[in-house]
């Protein structure tokens, strides 16, 4: 073959061969993208109503640590299937259920009943008893779960790690009036 640009039968066959591999490859690989992206679900798709147990565990006017098993649990999860949260019982059936994760970078906040503050060990975020930001780097208060009382038990709507992109609470009824 003297001229490189000339299309011979063999170069044509080679190009068809490359094209066939590309077509078959794409046909096989495209659905696999779905496999890779399978953890991504719509907002709330991971959530379920989960019982935190009897109301009697939560004395009025106090904040207690509770835990639940994540509804989306796999066999290999071990202890990591458990999630803790802070339950504050204001009175009767009025509650606030706070995520354990600091709104800054997700570290576990600790409740100090004496000073009625939540403190974060990582970067020093501090929150008041009602979850409002008190000081430190967080740009908002603690994340709160929706709750309801069913048959003497406290249920929360949970299932995924609360972050600034998934703020745990679906209903925005808790907006404090400004001014």
């Amino acid at each position, binding site marked *: 073959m003297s001229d490189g640009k000339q299309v011979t039968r063999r170069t044509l066959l080679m190009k068809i061969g490359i094209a066939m591999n590309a077509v078959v490859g794409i046909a096989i690989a495209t659905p696999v993208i779905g496999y890779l992206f399978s953890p991504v679900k719509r907002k709330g798709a991971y959530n379920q109503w989960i019982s935190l147990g009897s109301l009697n565990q939560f004395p009025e006017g106090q904040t207690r640590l509770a835990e639940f098993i994540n509804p989306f649990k*796999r066999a290999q999860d*071990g202890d990591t299937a458990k999630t803790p949260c802070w339950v504050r019982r204001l009175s009767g059936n009025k509650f606030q259920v706070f995520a354990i994760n600091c709104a800054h970078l997700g570290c576990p906040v600790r409740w100090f009943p004496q000073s009625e503050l939540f403190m974060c060990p*990582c*970067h020093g975020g501090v929150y008041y008893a009602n979850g409002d930001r008190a000081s430190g780097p967080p740009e908002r208060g603690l994340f709160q779960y929706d709750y309801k009382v069913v048959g003497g038990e406290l249920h929360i709507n949970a299932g995924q790690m609360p972050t600034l992109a998934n703020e745990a609470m679906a209903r925005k009824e808790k907006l404090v009036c400004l001014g």
Partner: protein
Amino acid sequence: MSRLKQIYGWFERRLQLEGPIKEAALHPVPRSTASWWYVFGSAAMTLLMLQIVTGILLAIIYVPSGSEAWKTLDQLNHQLYLGWFLRAMHGWGSNFMVAVVLIHMAQVFMFGAYKFPRELTWVLGVFLLLMTLGMAFTGQVLRFDQDAYWGLGIGASIMSRVPFIGGPLVHLLLGGPIIAGATLSRFFALHVFVIPGLMLLFTGLHVWMVLKLGINEWPMPGRIVRRETYIQEYNELAHRDGVPFVPDALWKDLFFSAGILAAVAVCAVLFGPYGPGGQPDPTIIQTAPKPDFFFLWLFAVLSYLPPQLETPFVLIAPAVGILVLLALPFVAGVGEKSWHRRPVAVLVLVTVAVSWGVFTHLGVHTPWSPVMDAWSGDPIPQKLVHRETPLERQGAVVFQAKQCRNCHSIGGLGGQRGPALDDVATRLTEDQLIRQVLQGGGNMPAYGKNLSPPEVNALVRFLETLKPANQPAAVDASQQAQVQSEK
């Protein structure tokens, strides 16, 4: 002997590797490059090999499962012969590797070795640095303990700040809605298959280019890099004043690599393996998560950013930093190589190194974190209270019981989040103390709702005693005027 030669000849006739290997080994390099400054790249490669070998040996035992990983690490540490040593070698090997890669990069930067025609070598090197850091982070996750668990939480929280796709990114990172078994499995795949595979490929190309383009000559002030003439000048230099790479330059690489390996082993034996720390049980919240050494600076930066700057900084700064590194050889690809003529480069390197050191130091001491058990663990020094009135002593009790100590130190013990209070009475008057306690502010929570008036009274009385004996208490403007009018 001739029998050995026969065997060698049999293989050589089939493999035909002798030619290319001899060519690579004996190619001339400028005499000036046979220097102790040029040993870090080969040392990084030696450490990569060490990490691969020790990694494979650990993988024989390790189970990447949320419920089993911690137990298998515990077995390695305590039950298997030399399991602890292999974990320690792998952990210390990773520390040394990050350090050596950074030193290698700093040296290449200082020597102008990224300039024409070695731009692509530098670019691949930047990716190799990113992969080395990626290995350090994913490796920390595989040590599936409390720090790993909450470290993933920090990673997910940072991801969630990406606009629009933050939520899906968190799910992709975690492999589901929460940090759990699926998260560990995907970090295992990254740490063991994806990143090492890419690293080997990139390292191969990196070394290939070093062989093909030649080792950077020692930079001399006034010897300017020009695209038109550089390659000819380099080849002349390498042939006129050159030495064969093997053995003239290689022996130093070999000495240094052996030294580094020995240093890793000594650290492994002396300091032992890293963790694992507490079991990855998220309901055990008595923990203060901290990243490994090489990410402490980032941990420190994240605590000092004002809230409104955090998201832009976290998302934009790394991308800008990487782009600057990648753009460097294309922006400054010609010209002077010598640091004597590149003051900006020297200043940049010194600034980066000092900032890194300062932030790492802060990350070790975390002055921004409340000391969670200071209120119950660190007593008020006796000499402060033994002459106090009952009310002032009651104030000291309030001070401890309300966790003030977690953020404020007295006598050097306690948190450093807020100012130390040893001499607070010289800085704030009674009125200012009351206002500060009740209303907070300046990064302190308001205690108005949590303290009764008698508690505030006692606390402020106690705080007013906190001053060195020979210094006057703080007074406000009206008090000062009164004092002066009385004179």
